């Protein structure tokens, strides 16, 4: 397997949606190709770091503000009812 072929499968490999034979070939490639190992490992870390949603918490005061605004806008639209936009 060439490195370019490995990269082509990287997304499915990281997502774990790959058949057993292909996975075995990819694992074998990773065992000897240091560059692909590093790319795979650091790509996985990239996803994990972004996925850590603690960094993107919605501040509580903003959340309250948004919820209040949404509720009041929905209620003012309710005069015609949510079905108002439907025929």
């Amino acid at each position: 397997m060439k490195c370019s072929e490995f990269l082509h499968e990287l997304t499915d490999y990281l997502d774990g949606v790959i058949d057993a034979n292909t996975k075995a070939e990819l694992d074998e490639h990773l065992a000897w190709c240091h560059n692909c190992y590093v790319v795979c490992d650091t790509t996985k870390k990239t996803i994990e770091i972004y996925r850590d949603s603690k960094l993107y918490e919605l501040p509580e005061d903003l959340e309250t503000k948004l919820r209040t605004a949404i509720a009041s806008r929905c209620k003012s639209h309710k005069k015609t009812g949510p079905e108002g936009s439907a025929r």
Partner: protein
Amino acid sequence: MGAIQPKVSEPVSDELVLVGRAKAGDVGAFEELVRRYDRNVFRIAQHITQNREDAEDVVQDAFLKAYNNLAQFQGQSKFYTWLVRIAVNEALMKLRRRRPERTISLDEEVKTEDDSVPREVADWSPNPEQQYTQAELRDILDRTIHGLPATFRTVFVLRDVEGLSTEETAEALDLSVPAVKSRLLRARLQLRERLNKYFRRRDRSNELQAKPSSGDGTR
């Protein structure tokens, strides 16, 4: 190397009941749906618009639009996927209004140099994120993801940050599954490459360039 663990999605069994009550005019039921998803919608909106005030507008507009169009929601997809679709469209509209000089479409073929081939392979420190404070890390992640074209960014955020499945991402963005996969691969590789400069292992950078197989016991 193990696969990325999927996000555990919350139970949504009562969701159709809530949607049904909201359709019948129960604002309280709709407020419960807002409580469940406002954080997610905010995060998506912020990543797409790259602007906090725009993201606040998008959250409000998206939920209001969802409320007004509940009759159109037939329950073939999850409520959340339907909501994300509305939110993404609202966010892209904001972006277009702010940058009218550049048309933004999720369908466009993004022409960039061949970004699928890693130009720089550098190992990272074991826990690279711990080298930075939360605020610094957040700044790094924001700056890095903001450099991606909107179409890549959106796919990455839905799939990897929000944990939607590939199929749900395709549905929310009106893209084919292969298109989602190809954008996701390029987004992941580009982000990785851009994060290298912050996270690469510093103390051993020389050692990595030297082949360990040289056999002379380089320290």
